[in-house]
């Protein structure tokens, strides 16, 4: 193969791989030997002679034919080959603000112009007469560049020569810039400007000063109805109920806004249900897929929801994800893809990318293949970070090609301390988690503060929110919020409260006529934001009463400490014989079939086993316990179904032998509020046959020797386990009514996917901001939405009819948090008719749901 074929771009490698079969097997009889040369031959044809300009956007069919094009034959890759060389060897003195000798290579024009000597830096097409080549190849130490340090290696010189001879093509729009803005490592001490007009919230003190500096008048506060709808959708993701709206409006307490914000944030379940979606996007957590084939991703749902409901401080939250116990390790485990994957998607590299992007606002994706040329991060930094999590030594691969260089476990900010590379990976992860969450690491707190601000205000302080290396519109505001988080014990809800109790958050949304570009942005109030797919779906479910009966997410949606305490366990210890006699390592399989007359809205299992047991429900492993004194609990709502269910428990005695027994109780709260418990007792059966890994007996292996299980005679043998077992059962018992199942807790429906809920193959930091035409078609005629709206029509008519004005008034207040105006009431009356029908009410509901005023959080 020709040497140049070994050059490392992804493209050429893939090309080689694609042509590989052909190349290797060209020895077939009577044929010429095909190689990548054949492909290159094809490539040497010039591209079309006539070309036209692009105008981005769907209106591009109006384009004008204007120009001719010729393309270089070999095609040195400017971005991947030339830029790293220029940056590494010339950047310090000749890019950004640095113009040593008057010479800059920021743009192609600068490069061609040359420096103070007046000689062009580069003559396109002629490396032999280009000053740049003369200087980098010179033997004269006074002439040679770089003036300090080693001369350029021969392969780098060869790349630049070839590039210049190919007319020195330049990436359109690319420029070497000065060092991008970058925040200092530690948070800055923010000196608050004086409060103006009693606006004392520190956010307002900073924002008011920024407004004054731009000569922008302070935006007025929005009205109460707008505020309660905005705060409710933002903090718990739900429309406020009409009664709550009216009570808020009627309240004359000047502190009611702050109180509302605190009340909303105090609703643990609603808060967790809502913010689960935000974190699922950032942590790639979902209830289905993905990973070529399913099974490549481990869910962290139960842990995540509980952490949010308990308001686990953010530093601990991060530590539990980065240095996880079993329940939260899905994040660092990443997605295990089937087949050969690019080196930049190996699991440890996914770890580095995701820790960087999600928590530190550092984009390591470019630097996963090569030193980033849009950023300062290097391949080495990415691999060193990845090596912290890697179980095996990790070799750097540049553009999917092994380099022979090994990574050393290390993280990005050694000033704060460094990883001890000699420790095993679990200990290294614990070190990383501790280093990341030091208060001295401002990148972590800033990144979260910026994401929250973006969520609540429609635009990040640093924008886009992908990376912190863009100048914020207010460095003070960013560090103020980050500092507020850290100094209040990393309390995420406190940070939300700080923002949402500001006048800046309560301001009316400004009229904007387009999306602000780049550095032009001036804060004028929160921007209207489109509801997420989940907010929209929850809103429709709230109005139409069509939420599903049970979630797919295995989560606890009630306060486990406040369950009525009279619900004692009914489960007994069982085994194959009354005496609980069991030889060492005896392994038995217990089973029970049962019916659920309705779906379970919440189900949880408590299991204790002497000595160990694993529970399977309907062919899915649910929980394993191996300490009879410490029962285990697991949520199993999604595993149970309406109708017939089968539980299988594989139980085993210890190696030492002695008595063995099993005790298990499943508490199911059914859709009508009744309770059904499935408990170990004499109605169970056992066999010595063993099920498969999913706890099932495939067709031809079904045991025929099931025998009745026996309630063990001396239950007191395990008396010391009674109290913890009872406590767990009480915690497993859901109250008779649970809040509405939320869209974020169920698998994505086609409509939700269409409205922008991502499939979470990648980390997602923001949702689409525009309603598209295809989405609008679905809103007009999607079958599932139409069914829900139709059901809503019947339900609203039954509850609030038949007076059309009352119906319209309820729909408007429930959907928009305000009554209809006289004009709107007239339109609604026309639509509803004097005697509204389920259909006309449904149409009225649809019309309101379509309004931008409804679909925007504003």
């Amino acid at each position, binding site marked *: 193969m020709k040497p140049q074929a070994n050059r490392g771009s992804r493209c050429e490698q893939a090309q080689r791989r694609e042509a590989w079969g052909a190349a290797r097997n060209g020895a077939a009889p009577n044929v010429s030997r095909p190689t990548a040369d054949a492909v290159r031959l094809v490539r040497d044809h010039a591209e079309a002679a006539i070309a036209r300009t*692009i105008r981005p956007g769907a209106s591009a069919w109006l384009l004008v034919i204007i120009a001719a094009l010729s393309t270089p034959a070999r095609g040195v890759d400017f971005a991947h080959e030339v830029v790293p060389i220029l940056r590494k060897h010339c950047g310090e003195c000749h890019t950004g603000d640095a113009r040593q000798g008057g010479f800059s290579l920021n743009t192609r024009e600068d490069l061609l112009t040359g420096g103070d000597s007046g000689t062009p830096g580069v003559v396109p097409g002629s490396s032999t007469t280009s000053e740049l080549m003369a200087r980098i190849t010179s033997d004269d130490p006074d002439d040679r560049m770089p003036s300090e340090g080693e001369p350029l290696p021969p392969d780098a010189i060869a790349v630049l020569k070839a590039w210049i001879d190919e007319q020195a093509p330049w990436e359109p729009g690319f420029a070497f810039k000065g060092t991008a803005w970058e925040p200092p490592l530690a948070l800055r001490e923010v000196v608050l400007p004086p409060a103006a007009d009693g606006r004392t919230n520190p956010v307002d003190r900073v924002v008011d000063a920024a407004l004054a500096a731009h000569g922008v008048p302070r935006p007025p506060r929005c009205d109460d109805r707008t505020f309660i709808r905005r705060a409710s959708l933002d903090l718990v993701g739900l429309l406020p109920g009409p009664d709550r709206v009216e009570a808020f409006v009627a309240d004359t307490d000047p502190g009611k806004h702050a109180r509302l914000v605190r009340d909303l944030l105090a609703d643990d379940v609603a808060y967790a249900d809502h913010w689960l979606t935000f974190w699922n996007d950032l942590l790639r957590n979902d209830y289905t897929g993905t990973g070529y084939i399913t099974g490549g991703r481990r869910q962290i749902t139960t842990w995540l929801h509980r952490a949010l409901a308990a308001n686990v401080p953010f530093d601990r939250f991060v530590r539990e994800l980065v240095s996880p116990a079993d329940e939260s390790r899905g994040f660092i485990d990443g997605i295990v893809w089937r087949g050969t994957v690019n080196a930049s998607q190996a699991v440890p590299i996914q770890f580095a990318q995701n820790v960087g992007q999600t928590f530190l606002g550092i984009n390591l994706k470019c630097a996963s293949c090569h030193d980033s040329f849009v950023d300062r991060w290097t391949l080495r930094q990415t691999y060193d970070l990845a090596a912290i999590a890697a179980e095996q030594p990790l070799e750097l691969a540049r553009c999917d090609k092994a380099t022979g260089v090994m990574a050393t476990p290390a993280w990005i900010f050694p000033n704060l301390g460094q990883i001890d590379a000699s420790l095993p990976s679990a200990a290294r992860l614990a070190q990383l988690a501790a280093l990341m969450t030091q208060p001295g690491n401002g990148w972590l707190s800033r990144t979260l503060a910026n994401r929250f601000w973006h969520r609540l205000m429609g635009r990040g302080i640093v924008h886009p929110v992908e990376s912190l290396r863009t100048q914020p519109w207010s460095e003070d505001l960013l560090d103020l919020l980050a500092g507020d988080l850290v100094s209040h014990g990393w309390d995420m809800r406190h940070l939300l409260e700080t923002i949402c109790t500001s006048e800046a958050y309560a301001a009316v949304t400004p009229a904007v006529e387009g999306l602000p570009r780049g550095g032009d942005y001036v804060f004028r109030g929160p921007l*209207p934001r489109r509801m997420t797919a989940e907010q929209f779906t929850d809103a429709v479910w709230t109005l139409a009463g069509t939420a599903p009966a049970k979630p797919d997410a295995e989560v606890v949606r009630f306060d486990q400490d406040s369950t009525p305490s009279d619900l004692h366990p009914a489960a007994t210890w069982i085994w194959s014989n009354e005496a609980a006699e069991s030889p060492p390592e005896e392994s038995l399989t217990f089973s029970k079939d049962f019916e659920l007359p309705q779906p379970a809205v919440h189900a949880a299992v408590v299991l204790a086993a002497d000595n160990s047991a694993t529970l399977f429900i309907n062919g899915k492993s649910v929980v394993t316990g191996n300490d009879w004194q410490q029962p285990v609990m697991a949520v199993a709502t999604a595993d149970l179904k309406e109708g017939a269910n089968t539980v299988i428990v594989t139980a085993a005695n210890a190696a030492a032998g002695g008595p063995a027994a099993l005790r298990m109780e499943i508490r199911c709260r059914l859709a009508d509020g009744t309770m059904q418990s499935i408990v170990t007792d004499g109605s169970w059966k056992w066999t010595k046959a063993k099920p498969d890994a999913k706890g099932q007996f495939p067709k031809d292996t079904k045991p025929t020797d099931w025998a009745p299980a026996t309630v063990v005679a001396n239950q007191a043998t395990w008396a010391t386990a009674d109290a913890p077992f009872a406590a767990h059962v009480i915690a497993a018992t859901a109250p008779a009514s649970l809040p509405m199942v939320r869209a974020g807790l169920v698998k994505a429906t086609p409509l939700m996917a*269409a409205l922008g809920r991502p499939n979470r193959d990648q980390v997602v930091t923001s949702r689409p901001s525009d309603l598209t035409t295809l*989405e609008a078609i679905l809103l007009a005629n999607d079958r599932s939405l139409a069914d829900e709206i139709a059901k809503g029509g019947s339900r609203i008519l039954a509850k609030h009819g038949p007076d059309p004005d009352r119906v319209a008034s309820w729909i408007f207040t429930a959907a928009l948090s305000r009554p209809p105006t006289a004009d709107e009431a007239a339109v609604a009356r026309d639509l509803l008719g004097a005697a509204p029908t389920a259909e006309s009410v449904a149409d009225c509901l649809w019309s309101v749901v379509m309004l931008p*005023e409804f679909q925007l959080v504003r």
Partner: protein
Amino acid sequence: MKSRRQFLECLAAAATTTLALPEPRARGSEQGPRIVHPAPRADAMIVLWMAGGMAAPDTFDPKRYKPFEPGLAVADVISTFPAIPTAIDGVQICNGLPEIAKVLDRATLVRSHVQPDLGSILHSRHQYHWHTGYVPPQTVACPHIGAWMARVLGPRNPVMPAFVNIGQRLEGVGENEEIKAFTTAGFFGSEFGPMNLPYPEQAALAVRPPEGMSAERFADRYAAMKRLTAASAHREFTSDFHQESMLRSIDNAHRLLGAKEREAFDITREPKEVQERYDTGRFGRGCLLARRLVENGARYVEVTTEYVPFVHWDTHENGHERVAALHAEIDRPIAALVRDLDERGLLDRTLVVIASEFSRDMITEGQPGSDAKDQASSPKDFLQLPAHYGQHRHFTAGSSVVLFGGGMKRGFVYGKTADERPCVAIENPVSITDLHATFFTAMGISPKTVFDIEDRPFYATLDGKGRAVESLFA
């Protein structure tokens, strides 16, 4: 002077998608040299997707044939169908495709398409690669090539969706999440994503009022919504930009739902004999729908035989018998599509492509020398059962692509596979990257077209390096 509202309404009327353009931005659009596109040879594209791996030796690249008999030596047989002549002198394809054979003189037949085997065959992963040009996993969600067409070229008729995907169910058929991962506009955002029509005979429903709602009621409901919008107390007080862009989309949707073009989705409007000409099943009806959509201004339409693991072209056993049925399913409608487009003068400006994620073989899994795991159980030496007769292993080193119209040569064969096993491409291998570059170039899109996503340049073809196979162009 115009009020602010009037100003915005004017903008909305001008269909200013660029105003609503979220990140990513097209690079070079604002500063520096512009991306220069080639002159388009085609305005529309139809991909006929043979999902599951269409065996070239049993379709467009016949080799040595032997019928099944107990004890048949696998080494003695490469094709399980005999060859038949075509409208191109000296060029044969497999028996079972007689109608396509008759129109092959309007095609360029590429017999040297090659793919990497990715270390292990997984159809959805290879299909992702074929449809986006990028091997999954990737750090950003890659756009489907149809989304590139939609993003760069837009619809030909503003009422019609630019990208329509016919025949693939996205729920309940296996590997759903993986199929969805590339049936998307990725980071372009869903404005440029596919309109999915899994059942062509029900496509009309997708642009009709919801079932059970009369057209009159549907129109009244929309009119009421418009009146409410006009009467909205909040209209003057909230952001024009966000509000107007949302209303514009709702208006666009209802424009299609009320437009004449909507009839294009209804294949029952075709004369009965035409419907019968196409109707070999869901795929055949999809071809008819594709023709109607392209006639009415769709930009990119894909019709699939549908990917369902172990079904259709994914022949892990009984391959011969199943391919015979597939021949019958695709032969008439594809020929009818080509003839109809040609008769209407549309074929010259419509690129019709028959393609698949890879080929198949009776012996080799992946490519020769690969360590990809063998996923079939048929013997590799001697066959005893009819169910073992067929192309049961996935083969990535030589497959066929047929290109009709769209500026391609007529009656031309490009590339070649070895006549003996392994039947690898031995002449002019064409990678996915270069095949895409050929499609893009035909449609007037530079293979170097690039967008910024998360600060990273992302190209229409891998690293911007795809080169069109120029010798295919007429």
